């Protein structure tokens, strides 16, 4: 059995999808997405989406890393097994600073990567969009707008027509097979 996922329209240039995305947003659609071979400059604003939340994960990672480093050195060289080395104090914020610094960066980098994965809901190896016969071209040189049937304004007849009026080519209904 098949269920419908959404209707797709392809575009040939960054300019075409940029203009079309503005019109789709003005029409009031909510559940839709642009598929592009490159990050199109300014498309976020055209689609009406805000800034990415990845920096929050980076910051959280960085803070965790810094305190992990501090705790590590304090526990090992001050609390658990103090040793006098080179007449230096058991613990200080100065001498082990390179360790804090590196762990801040390490954890922040992990926060960034996993934050990106989390926000993009990756890994997700299966998605209805992959059923589109020429989905592969969106990684090459084609651009695509997909409006999902979940959208409150979606209409079986009107939405494909609307995509045609904004310049979309080869309008296709994407179906997901359910076993």
């Amino acid at each position, binding site marked *: 059995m098949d269920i419908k996922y959404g209707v797709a329209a392809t575009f040939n*240039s*960054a*300019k075409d999808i*940029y*203009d079309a995305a*503005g019109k789709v947003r003005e029409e009031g659609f909510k559940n839709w*997405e*642009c*598929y*592009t*071979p*490159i*990050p*199109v*400059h*300014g*498309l*976020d604003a*055209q*689609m009406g989406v805000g800034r*990415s939340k*990845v*920096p929050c994960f*980076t910051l959280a990672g960085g803070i965790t890393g810094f305190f992990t480093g501090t705790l590590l*050195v304090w526990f*090992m*060289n001050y609390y*658990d*097994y103090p*040793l006098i*080395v*080179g007449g230096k104090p058991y613990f200080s914020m100065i*001498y*082990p600073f*390179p*360790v804090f*610094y*590196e*762990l801040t*960066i390490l954890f*922040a*980098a*992990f926060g*960034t*990567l996993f*934050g*990106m994965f989390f926000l*993009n809901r990756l*890994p*997700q*190896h*299966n*998605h209805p*969009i*992959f059923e589109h016969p020429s*989905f*592969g071209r969106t*990684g*090459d*040189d084609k651009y695509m707008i997909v409006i999902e049937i979940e959208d409150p304004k979606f209409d079986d007849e009107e939405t494909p027509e609307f995509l045609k009026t904004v310049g979309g080519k080869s309008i296709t209904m994407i179906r997901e097979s359910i076993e």
Partner: protein
Amino acid sequence: MSSKVTDQADVISPELMKKVNPAKWEEVPLVLNKRNFHWVTEKICGIVEQKTPTWWWWCFITAMGIASFTGLGLVYLVSTGVGVWGNSNPVNWGWAIVNFVFWIGIGHAGTLISAILCLLKQKWRTSINRASEAMTVFAVMCAGIFPLFHVGRVWFAWWLFPLPNANAIWPQFRSPLEWDVFAVSTYFTVSILFWYMGMIPDLAVLRDRAKETWRKYFYGVLAMGWRNANNHWRNFEMAYLLLAGLSTPLVLSVHTIVSFDFAVANLPGWHTTIFPPYFVAGAIFSGFGMVLTLLLPLRAIFRLHDLITEKHIDNMCKIILATGSMVGYAYSMEFFIAWYGANSYEGFAFINRAFGNYWWAYWIMVSCNVICPQLFWFKSIKNNIPLVWIISIFVNVGMWFERFVIANTTLSRDFLPSSWGYYSPTVVDIFTFFGTFGFFSILFLLFLRFLPLMPMAEVKSVMPAADPHGGKH
């Protein structure tokens, strides 16, 4: 949002333009011959999708042969003891530290290209950054071999990490060598993360083009289900920018901390504050040398002349010229401070460096690092690709000798003349180092065969067709 874009020429009146008569600025495109997106995809994917070329097999077999020298050297070292290397009193570091710093330094250009040039919005970086990042990762792997085996009993190398061991003693963090463990392992990890994350969209392209089952699985798993969706790109671009921002202080800190290995010791010739910036400049210098050594043959083999243009090579030559001059400045400044500081040991260390027992190494270093890059002032030399390639090899040789000079001249002339010595490598040292070039080549050849050589989406982004305003921006 209005997409009305005005050109400068539309605003300024034509009479005024005639009077001012501005010079014509010709923007050289980053991708030549008006190639389109599809051409880029075919070109880059074609490299991994084509039948394995014969030259690849020959190179791979040769690289395996060379790498076996490292294998032999290490097996002999582990089974016999670290004494099979030439290290002995007073030169206890020898080639191990020289090779470690050499390989780590090479890695730095990759991070400079991927991170610092990204923050500086240098668009020409796009076609060379993937290969350079790969070079970084592989160079750090080669670097890691030396300290790992220099610890003597390599099976205890994990004591370097903050893990509980049978003696209940923790690593002690007052030592720059311990800082180095953190700096280098963080550098390696973050370089891999950055390299891999940048590759995800390209792996998805390869996945969607894959015909064979193993390719579908291989690229499918690595691509994580990437969908080219704008939402994905939005988070990806932000993450990429942040990783660039994190890698920049990281790369500067790594060679700074490597230089602390020397600078924190109270030895003449090492105990100087100029070491961190001088080491970082030297690292970038040697790394760009290696980038040119690797990319110029690739450009010829895969016919990438439209992607790695003369402008790219010209820019890299300029960076080599700039960092080479910084290194030359640091060499002279060291001498000045040794004289100005009026410390007799420091003064001796530097006179000894240039005219003492390792004078030959010092002058090889100066000719390769200070004189050679100055040739890049001339356009005719920068445009002569074979000559650029030869100079890039001289840069690599010179930077290896720089580390040799720094480490050995100081150690071989101790404070007491009774403790003086002369260090020579043994055949095991030479085998182990020689083999790392094979090990590096194996990894690089595998990278060429299985992973996208250039970030396709980024290359496409700097082409005119990527502009949503139709070129009127």
